[in-house]
């Protein structure tokens, strides 16, 4: 009895609040990211993408002012993310939840978005299942199976590789990458000679690379976390003589990210990677974006996090225009379904069935251009969907 009374009183308060918010004609967006802790850099890059979009397009959409409320999870803590999402909805009266650099954060907040019927824009978290956790989730980043399954297929069909070896870091994303590359490759007809997993922290790659060499594959697929590891594995590969063109080196885009390329130096030449965003892609929209981003961030280049945040904001602006400023969760998510646009990364759209991102996957090779190492696009696979959705588990 008492609990019900108290709930009614608070509900009254809450309604009064949201009415007030409506009267002020603002749309509140709660951004949940790991601003502190080991993933702070990713959060800052993503936030910079959001800020850039807002600086460029103003903070008023469909006659409403956009207000951002930032909340810190401190890392992959789903309980904290859930509490923050709950507080944002209940206390701050936000209309849209956004951010989510890490999968556990998105999984924590998903039930809140489902219960409160709020649009939730996932701007990075890259595990397939994320969008299945709430009917209000829309993703604007990438999924690991999306880029790697297409890559495996390409390796067999276009690059003509018949047998390969996989070497991935022993953690969730690494396992996903191994599984999806192998699937794309073997479904097309290729053979995986062997799979090894390296420790996530400070591994010594030489023993692993030697094992790969002993199997003498035509190609090796590598997935390691960013930071110091790309340089370490590049050196190990060259030391053992496992390098292109004799052996093809395949990887996901992080391995040859501009900052990683700098530390790898010439050892990176010839590495072929798959990704959804390529910094050097020559396209007016991308050039303008990169230039503006560097100007706003002391010369730092945008990365995969930045583009996720940038396109996430684009989606929010566009759906608000479509609903004419209405923040009803159902209306917003309906507006998002099937939406397509030109992003600095290339053409992209939201799958109306899965609410997941559909985009071009780029296969790039590290080449020397004007004395500088760059990821040069050698092949584009348009309109790739995440292959795992709708499959039996």
């Amino acid at each position: 009895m008492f609990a019900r009374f108290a709930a009614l009183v608070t509900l009254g308060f809450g309604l009064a609040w949201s009415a007030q918010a409506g009267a002020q004609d603002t749309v509140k967006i709660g951004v949940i990211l790991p601003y502190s802790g080991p993933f702070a850099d990713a959060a800052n890059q993503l936030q910079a993408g959001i800020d850039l979009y807002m600086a460029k397009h103003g903070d008023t959409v469909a006659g409403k002012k956009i207000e951002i409320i930032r909340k810190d999870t401190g890392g992959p803590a789903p309980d904290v993310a859930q509490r923050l999402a709950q507080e944002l909805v209940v206390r701050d009266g936000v209309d849209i939840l956004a951010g989510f650099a890490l999968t556990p954060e998105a999984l924590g907040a998903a039930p809140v978005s489902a219960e409160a019927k709020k649009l939730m824009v996932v701007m990075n978290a890259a595990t397939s299942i994320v969008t299945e956790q709430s009917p209000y989730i829309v993703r604007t980043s990438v999924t690991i199976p999306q880029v790697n399954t297409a890559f495996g297929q390409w390796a067999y069909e276009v690059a003509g590789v018949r047998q390969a070896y996989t070497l991935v870091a022993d953690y969730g994303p690494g396992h996903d990458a191994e599984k999806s590359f192998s699937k794309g490759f073997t479904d097309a007809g290729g053979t995986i000679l062997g799979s090894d997993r390296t420790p996530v922290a400070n591994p010594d790659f030489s023993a692993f690379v030697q094992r790969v060499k002993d199997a003498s594959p035509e190609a090796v697929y590598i997935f390691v976390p960013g930071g110091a590891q790309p340089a370490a594995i590049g050196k190990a590969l060259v030391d053992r003589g496992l390098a292109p063109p004799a052996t093809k080196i395949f990887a996901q885009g992080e391995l040859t990210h501009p900052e990683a390329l700098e530390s790898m130096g010439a050892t990176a030449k010839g590495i072929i990677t798959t990704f959804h965003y390529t910094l050097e892609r020559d396209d007016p929209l991308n050039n303008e974006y990169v230039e503006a981003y560097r100007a706003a961030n002391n010369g730092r280049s945008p990365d995969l996090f930045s583009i996720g945040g940038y396109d996430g904001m684009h989606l929010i602006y566009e759906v608000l225009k479509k609903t004419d400023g209405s923040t009803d969760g159902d209306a917003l998510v309906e507006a998002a379904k099937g939406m397509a646009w030109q992003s600095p990364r290339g053409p992209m759209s939201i799958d109306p069935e899965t609410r997941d991102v559909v985009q071009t996957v780029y296969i790039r090779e590290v080449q020397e251009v004007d004395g500088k190492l760059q990821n040069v696009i050698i092949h584009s696979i348009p309109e790739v969907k995440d292959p795992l959705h709708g499959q039996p588990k």
Partner: protein
Amino acid sequence: MVDTTLARHHPDGAHTWLKRQSRWSVFEIAFWLATLLPFFLFPTYLTLASQIAIAALFAISVDLILGYAGIVTLGHAMFFGLGAYSAGLISVHGWGEPLTGLAFAAAFAGLVGFIVSFLIVRVQHLALIMITLGLGLLTYELANALTWLTGGTDGLRGIRTWPIFNQFRFDLWGYTAYSYALAVLFLGFLASRRIVNSSFGLALRGIRENVRRMPAIGSDHRRHLQTIYTISAAIAGIAGALLAQTTNVVALDALSFNRSADVVVMLILGGTGRLYGAILGSIIFLVARDQLAGVNPQYWYFWIGLLLMFVVLFMPKGILGGLARLVVRREP
């Protein structure tokens, strides 16, 4: 720290002294009544309040071994995480009843605690810190490797907690979550209070003060330490299970070193060797974190660090110890 003069002077003093210690003071009653205030004053902060209650229960479990028995630990999140995962796992596999989930988590964490305690009682000081730290890290990596069971870095999914007594559903506002966490915290506190105010509790303090003397007066210190370590592990397991049930998610974070370290920070802030110190520490830590992170999400840890240094320098017995010094004690 503890006034034992009475116990020394009277032949029957120990019994009287213990009895006096376990009497409820006005402050205590007022404190527990105050825990009901969030329902009326801060109804939009109930989720935070429930997580504070969970952290407080976890801090009490650490206080029992660190503050009372002198077992310094940097790996207690191991039991918190084991409790969270066991409660989460039975829910994933079709049994989401919360109270039996708590009991199962307590039993499992307690069992592991009992096994580990054989190792714990053999070492002291620096070696003890290293052993607890190592065990915590091992458990973390084990959970990371057992992806098929724990979901690995993605966390455990599909937890569905049934309504308590089939009556009270876990709501978005956190009414049920806070009531549930608070009730369990209170019961855990009552049990711990009973333990520290018993002759067993006194024996623990004896071990903390001088571990060599205890065998000399005929006290089986190893068995005492094993008992309290097992109890503490079970309580930590309950706290973990509460978190799993009120949020319906468990990730590796529940086992992380950060969680072990944060709980020690809470204890130091509040004051070790006092059950209310554990509760006060978790309130201060989490409220400060919430407020500071709201102001600046990037650098809030700076202020926590500053607060910690201030407390350690000027109130070595924690905030509660500092407050207690200000209140003049009434002698009987």
